[in-house]
Structure formats: structure tokens, C-alpha cells
């Protein structure tokens, strides 16, 4: 068989073999392989895109969370300040109120004392009067017999009353 003369038999079998291999592999090998490789490529591409997206999303989230935190700090400060103001206000109010109340109580107490005093005085006066009458009565009962003594007492008593 010559080196450079094509041989029909070999040429024929070559075409048959190649065609068979091509048809079998096309259906059962290249289709799933190419499909799987493309799928994988697509997967990787998608994965990378998703990762990129997630990254920007994460950055956004960070910005947002930073904003939320700073807002919260501002709000907290405000709340604290408000609270302090409120507390001071309440304390001041309470103090004023208490002072007023105390004053009121004191006033009423003073009035009561004054009234009680007046009542007591009048009571005492009545008591004194009745006592004096009684005393007088007793003295009278005891010393009525002795004129001299009686006289003397009468005078002294009368002196005393005069003094009043």
C-alpha cells in the first residue's frame, strides 16, 4: 500500500467510523457534557453576580444601620435631656406644691390654735367664775359664823376683785 495514495477501503471505514462516533457521542456524550458545563458556567456567573449584589446590599445595610444607630443616639440624648427637664419640672412643682400645702396647713393650724385658745380662755373664764362662786360659797359656809373673820375675808376678797 502506497504511502501517499489514498486507499478506498480505509477511506470508507474512516468515514463510517467517524460518522458513527460522531452520532453516538453527539447524542449521548456531547449533549449532556456541554449542557452540564454551560449550566455550571451559568451557575458560577450567577453566583458571582449574587455575591456582588450581596456585597453592595451589605454595604447599603451597613450605611442604613449606621444611620439607625446615630439616629438612636440622637434620640437617646434627646430623651435623656427631656427626662432630666421633666424630672426637674416635676420636682420643682412638687416642692412648690408641698410648700403651699405646708403653708396652708400651718395657717389652718394657727387659726385652729387661735380658736382653741379663745375657746379655752372663755372656758377658763367660766371655770374661774364658777370656782370663785364655789370658793365664795365654801368660805361663806365655813366663816359665816365668825363675823370678824368674815368681815376680814370679805374685805380681802373684795380687794382682790378690785384689783382685777
Amino acid at each position, binding site marked *: 500500500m502506497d504511502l501517499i495514495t489514498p486507499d478506498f477501503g480505509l477511506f470508507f471505514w474512516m468515514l463510517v*467510523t467517524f460518522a458513527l462516533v460522531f452520532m453516538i457521542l453527539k447524542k449521548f456524550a456531547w449533549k449532556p457534557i*456541554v449542557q452540564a458545563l454551560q449550566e455550571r458556567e451559568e451557575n458560577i456567573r450567577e453566583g458571582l453576580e449574587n455575591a456582588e449584589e450581596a456585597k453592595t446590599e451589605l454595604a447599603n445595610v451597613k450605611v442604613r444601620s449606621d444611620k439607625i444607630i446615630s439616629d438612636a443616639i440622637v434620640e437617646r440624648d434627646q430623651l435623656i435631656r427631656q427626662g432630666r427637664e421633666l424630672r426637674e419640672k416635676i420636682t420643682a412643682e412638687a416642692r412648690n406644691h408641698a410648700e403651699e400645702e405646708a403653708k396652708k396647713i400651718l395657717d389652718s393650724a394657727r387659726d385652729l390654735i387661735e380658736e382653741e385658745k379663745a375657746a379655752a380662755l372663755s372656758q377658763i373664764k367660766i371655770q374661774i367664775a364658777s370656782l370663785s362662786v364655789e370658793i365664795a360659797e365654801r368660805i361663806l359656809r365655813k366663816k359665816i359664823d365668825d363675823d370678824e373673820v368674815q368681815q376680814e375675808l370679805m374685805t380681802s376678797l373684795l380687794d382682790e376683785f378690785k384689783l382685777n
Partner: protein
Amino acid sequence: MKLYGIKLRICLFALLTAAISMQSVFAAGAGGGDGEFDPGSFIFDHIADAYDWHLFDINGKQYSVPLPVILYTRDKGLNIFLSDKFDHGHAAYRGFRIEHEGPDKGKIVVAIDDHTTDQEAATPLNLSITKNVFGMFFAAAIMIWIFLTIGSRYKRDPKKPPKGVQSLFEPLILFVIDDIVKPAIGEKKYVMFLPYTLTLFFFIWINNMLGLVPIFPMGANVTGNISVTAGLALTSFLAINLSGNKHYWQHIFNTPHVPVFLKLPIPIMPVIELVGIFTKPFVLAIRLFANITAGHIITMGFFCLIFIFAQVSAAFAYGGTVLAVAFGIFITFLEMLVALIQAYVFTLLTSLFIGAAVEDAH
């Protein structure tokens, strides 16, 4: 660790190849003991196709695997028999013999007796399963087995990372897809040409690689045979021209941006372009054939050096053997590279031609 293992395996492969090639040369040298060792005919016997698969010679007796001979003539009809009936070309069988002389040397012709050819009769239609056909069948079987295995795995779990033989072929498949076909044909249309280009690449590559392994049923010089490369070129020709669009054919018969006097009255440009359609695949066929054949010739040549030296003196033969084996191993490594490069070049050029044929008008 894994890379080291692969390197080791490649080294072993090269050593084994070299060692066995040498053995077959020894066998041939010993077989031709009756006369002078003729490296030319020895090498060309190796790279040429044959009706039986020669394994080795022991004491001048040839041991070979007989292959089916399939012949058809109008007179004798279909004849199918094993090639050992020819007794290595020494006998005729059913009126056929292997011609040893003349322009039909090596072909099966109609015989009158064991030693004479019927010059009147036409050469029979010969569809024999020759050494190359058998080697090609083997390569095709291996190819189908490998890729069906891989394919079913991709089908079963496409998202899993590749393993085993799949991880050997996936980089190559991706190389063909991403570095050859996609850039050559273009993002939009490459997918429909993938089955053909992938088959082409691996058919050439696997046949090239198996051609380097000198153990039956490998080692046939399949891609170093002009008939095979012509067949591959024909598939390439069909793929290019059947996929050619309007723009492609317009470019051939009425090339734009070319002065009218080159087209009328003598159609110089259309003729040149039309010839170009045929030269492209023709060059593909010649390139692959020449490269692979050259590789086989060089490898065999180095091993033949041993016997050429041996005819001078024994000491020369020992020195020559060391040198020849060293060079043989080197060339085997080189041929492994060439096997891949030629598969790459054939596929790349075919893809580029297809790319030009399906390109949209711009």
C-alpha cells in the same frame, strides 16, 4: 502529589513505548537475519497499512493477528476471509493475492496462481478491516467508552466537581470549547458546531496517542495515513460548506471590494476562491498526515540506528543502543506533544473556516 503521579505515569508510558518499539525492531532485525537490515523498508512497512497485524518474529517465523479481508468483484461476488489465508503474502486464496511488485504493490489483486497476477482483471473493491481500520475501530471504541462514561456522569450530577477520567478530559473539553471553537466561530453560533469539533479533536488526538503505543491493538499509524486524514478533511469540508451562509457564497463568487476586471470577463477571483474551498481541507489532510508520519519515521529511525550500528561492530551497537533509546524516549515525548498540537491545529483551522463560513455580513 497528584501531579507527580501523572508525571510518573507519562514517564512510564514513554519508557514502555520506547522499550517495546525497540523490541519490535529487534524482532524485525532478527527476522531479517538472512540479509542486510534495510531500515527504509522496515520503517515504511511499519507506517504503511497492512492486512494482518504483525506482532513479532521468532526464529524467522512471523507471528501476527489475522484481520478480516472483505473483497467484492463482479465475477466472484463478496468474499470475506481472514488474512492469514494469504500466509503473509506468500499464497493466493480464492483467486486473490497480495501484489508485491509494480504500481499495485501491497494491494489485493486477482491472482492466476500464488505468484502471478491476472493483469486483465480489475482490482477488486477492497473493504478489508486492515491494521489501520482495526486500530481506528479500537480508538473509536475507547473514545465512545470514555465519553459515554463521562457523559453519563455529567448527566447524573452536573453540579459535582469532576473526578477520575472526567477530571482528565474536562480541561481538554473546556480547552476545545473555550479556546478553539468559541473564539473561532463566535459567541452566537459556536454551540451547534461543538459536537462535530469535539469529536474531531478527540478522534485525532486519541488516534495520535494510541499510535504511539506499540502494543496490539494500539500502535497503528492511523492518523499518519493519507486516507484517514483525507476522510477527516472531507468531514471538515462538509462542515464548512454545508454551514456556509449567503454571505460566504457571495464572498466566493462575487468577492466584494475587488475590481470588476478581476471577475469579468475572465473570472479570476471566483476561480481562485473556488480552488480555495478545496485547498483548505486538502492542506489540513496533508499537514496531519505529514506530521504524524514524520514522527513515526523519526522514532523508528532512531531504533533502526541500533541495527545499523550493529552491522559495524558489537561495541558500536552497545553505544548506539544507549543513544538510540535516549533519543527514542525524547522523540516519544515530542510526539505526545505533536499528537495534541496536531489535533489542536486541525480543530482550530476547521473552526476558523466554519467561523468564516457562518459569519454575518458586516
